[in-house]
C-alpha cells in the first residue's frame, strides 16, 4: 500500500473514532457521575440527527447553526428526563446497586420509547442531505470536506468537555462527586443541581454528535443502537468514569476497526468490536489505560 492509502485509511478511522469519542464522553459522564448506564444514549443521538435534518431540509437552516441549537434542545430534553424519571428513582432506591439495575431498566424503556416515536414520526426510510461534499487534497490522500469538518468539531467538543472538567470549579465539583459522593456532599457540593445538569450535558453532547453525523452520513431511526454499543465498548476500553481514556479509546477503536475491516472482511466489523469489548471486560475491567491507585 502507498503512503497516501495508509493515510486515508487511518484518517477515516480517526474520523469515525472522533464521533465514537464524543458519544462515549456523554455516556461516560452519566455513568461515572450518577451510575446511570443510559442504554438510550444512541437514541438521543438519532433525535439530534433528525432535528438537524428536519430543520435543514424544511427551513434551510445551516447544519453548523444547528449544533448549538440541538445541544440546547437535547439538554432541555435531558433535564426533563432526569426530572421525570431518575429523580424519583434515586429517591426511592435503597442502595446504589439497586439504583443501577433499575436505572438500566428505565433506560431500556426510554430506548424503546424514543426509537419508536422517531420511527412513527419520521418513518423508517434512510434520510440525508448534501453538505460540503467537495473533496480536499492533502498530498497523495484525498478526503471529503464534511468528514474533516466533522472530525475537527468532534475533537473540539471533546476537548472542551475535558477542559471544563479539569480546569473549572464546576468540573472540580463533578470530579469530586465521581471520587466520593458522600465526601463531596459534605464539602457542600450540591448534587441536586449537578446531577440533572450533567445528565443534560451528556445528552446535549449526544445531540451534537448526531448533528455532526447527519452532515456526513445518512440517518435512520435504527442508527442509534450501534452507537450505544460502540460507546459502551469505548468506555470499557478507557475505563468507566475516565474522560481522557474515553477520548483515546474512541480514536483507537475507530482506527482498529478501519484497519481490521480493510485487511479482513467488512462483515467482520461487528464481530471484531465485540471481541475487543469482551476481551477487555474480562481481562482488564478497570480499562486499558488505568494506572493503579488513581481514579477518575
Amino acid at each position, binding site marked *: 500500500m502507498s503512503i497516501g492509502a495508509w493515510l486515508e485509511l487511518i484518517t477515516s478511522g480517526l474520523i469515525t473514532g472522533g464521533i465514537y469519542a464524543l458519544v462515549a464522553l456523554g455516556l461516560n459522564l452519566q455513568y461515572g457521575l450518577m*451510575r446511570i*448506564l443510559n442504554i438510550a444514549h444512541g437514541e438521543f443521538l438519532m433525535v439530534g440527527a433528525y432535528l438537524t435534518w428536519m430543520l435543514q431540509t424544511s427551513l434551510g437552516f445551516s447544519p453548523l447553526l444547528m449544533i448549538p441549537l440541538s445541544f440546547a434542545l437535547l439538554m432541555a430534553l435531558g433535564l426533563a428526563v432526569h426530572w421525570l*424519571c431518575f429523580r*424519583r*428513582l434515586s429517591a*426511592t432506591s435503597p442502595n446504589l*446497586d439497586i439504583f*443501577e*439495575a*433499575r436505572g*438500566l*431498566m*428505565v433506560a*431500556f*424503556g*426510554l*430506548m*424503546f*420509547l*424514543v*426509537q*419508536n*416515536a422517531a*420511527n*412513527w414520526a419520521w418513518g423508517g426510510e434512510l434520510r440525508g442531505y448534501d453538505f460540503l461534499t467537495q473533496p480536499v487534497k492533502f498530498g497523495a490522500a484525498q478526503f471529503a470536506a464534511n468528514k474533516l469538518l466533522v472530525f475537527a468539531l468532534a475533537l473540539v467538543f471533546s476537548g472542551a468537555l475535558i477542559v471544563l472538567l479539569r480546569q473549572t470549579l464546576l468540573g472540580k465539583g463533578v470530579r469530586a462527586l465521581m471520587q466520593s459522593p458522600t465526601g463531596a456532599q459534605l464539602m457542600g457540593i450540591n448534587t441536586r443541581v449537578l446531577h440533572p445538569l450533567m445528565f443534560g450535558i451528556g445528552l446535549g453532547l449526544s445531540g451534537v454528535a448526531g448533528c455532526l453525523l447527519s452532515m456526513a452520513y445518512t440517518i435512520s431511526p435504527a442508527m442509534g443502537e450501534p452507537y450505544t*454499543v460502540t460507546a*459502551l465498548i469505548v468506555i*470499557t476500553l478507557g475505563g468507566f468514569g475516565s474522560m481522557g481514556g474515553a477520548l483515546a479509546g474512541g480514536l483507537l477503536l475507530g482506527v482498529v476497526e478501519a484497519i481490521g475491516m480493510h485487511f479482513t*472482511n467488512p*462483515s*467482520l466489523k*461487528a*464481530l471484531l468490536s*465485540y*471481541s475487543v*469489548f*469482551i476481551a477487555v*471486560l*474480562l481481562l482488564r*475491567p478497570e480499562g486499558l489505560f488505568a494506572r493503579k491507585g488513581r481514579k477518575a
Partner: protein
Amino acid sequence: MTSRQLLIRDLLVLLAIAGWGLALPYWGSEFIVSLALTCLMYVALSSSWALFCGTTRYLSLATSAFFGIGAYSGALSLEHMPWLQAVGLGAGIAAVVAVVMGAAVLHLRGTYFAVLTFGMTELIRHAITYFEKSVTGTVGRVLAVVPERDTIYLTVLGLAVLAVATSIVVRRTRFGLALAGIGADEQRAQTLGVNTRWVKLAGFALTAAFAGAVGAAMSVRWTYIDPPTVFNPFIGFQTVLIALIGGALTLWGPLIAAIVFSLLAETLRLQAPQVYMMTLGMLLILSVLYLPGGLASLRWGTLRSWWSDTRAWWTERRYEWSGEKERVKRRAREQRLA
C-alpha cells in the same frame, strides 16, 4: 397460610391452568392457539429467567443467545432424531454454552454482568451469521421435517408447566435458598458456607436449558430460521421486561405479565407496531418507577397509597398555585422584621 398449604395452593393453580391449556387446541380457533403458543413461550422463558436472575439479581440479557442456540441445534438435528430428543439436545447444548459463559462472567456483578451477557449474545449472533455466510454459504435454513401443530403446542405447554413447577419446587430446596441468599448478600452467603460459584453456575445453566428447549420447540413453528430471527435481542429484552413488570421475585408475576403482554402484542402490533413498542417502553418505565415489586405485588394497599400520594401532591400544588404559600412566607418575614 403455612408453607405446606401454600405449596398445595400453588400446585392446584398450576394444575388448573395446565388443564385449560391442554383443552385449548380442541375448541380454540387457529388464531387463539397461535396466540396461546406465544403466550406459553414467554411464560416458560420469563419464569425460568426469574428463577435464576430474579432471585440472585444477576441481570442476564443472554436469553436470546440460548434461545437461538436451541433453535439452531433443534432444527439441524430434527432430521436425524425423534422430536423429544431434538428438544432435549437443544436444551443440553444451551446449558453447556451457559456453563462455559458463566464460568467466564459470573464473577462480575451488576451492570458489568448485564452488559457483558448482552455483548456475548451479539458476538454469538454475528459469529453464526458469519459462519453461515462464509462456510455453509446460506443465509437461513428451511426446515423440511416439521411435526404437527398439536405436538409443538403440547411440548411448549409442557415446558411452560415444567418451568413454573421447577420454580415452585426450587424455592423450597436448599438450592433455592442459596440462590435467594446470593441475591440478598453474596458475601454473607459465602461466609455461611454456600458455594456461590457452583450455585450460580447451576442456576445459570438451568435457565439456559429452558431457553434452549423453548428455542428448539419454537423453531419448527417458523419453518424457516435465520440468525436475525432466532437471535433477535428483542426476545431476550421482552423476557426480561415480562419478568420485571410481573415481578421477578414472585412466582405468578411472570405468568400474569406474559398473558397481559401477549394480548397487548396481538391487538396492537399489527395495526401500529410503533405504538406497541412505545407502550412497552412506557410500561417498563412506569413499572420500575411506581411498582418496583411488579404486577404480582399489586395489592389494595398499593392502590390506596397511590391515591393518597396523588391527593397529597395535588393539595401541595393547590397550596402553591393559589398564592397561599407566598402569602404565608411573606407574613412570616414581616413578623420577623416586626
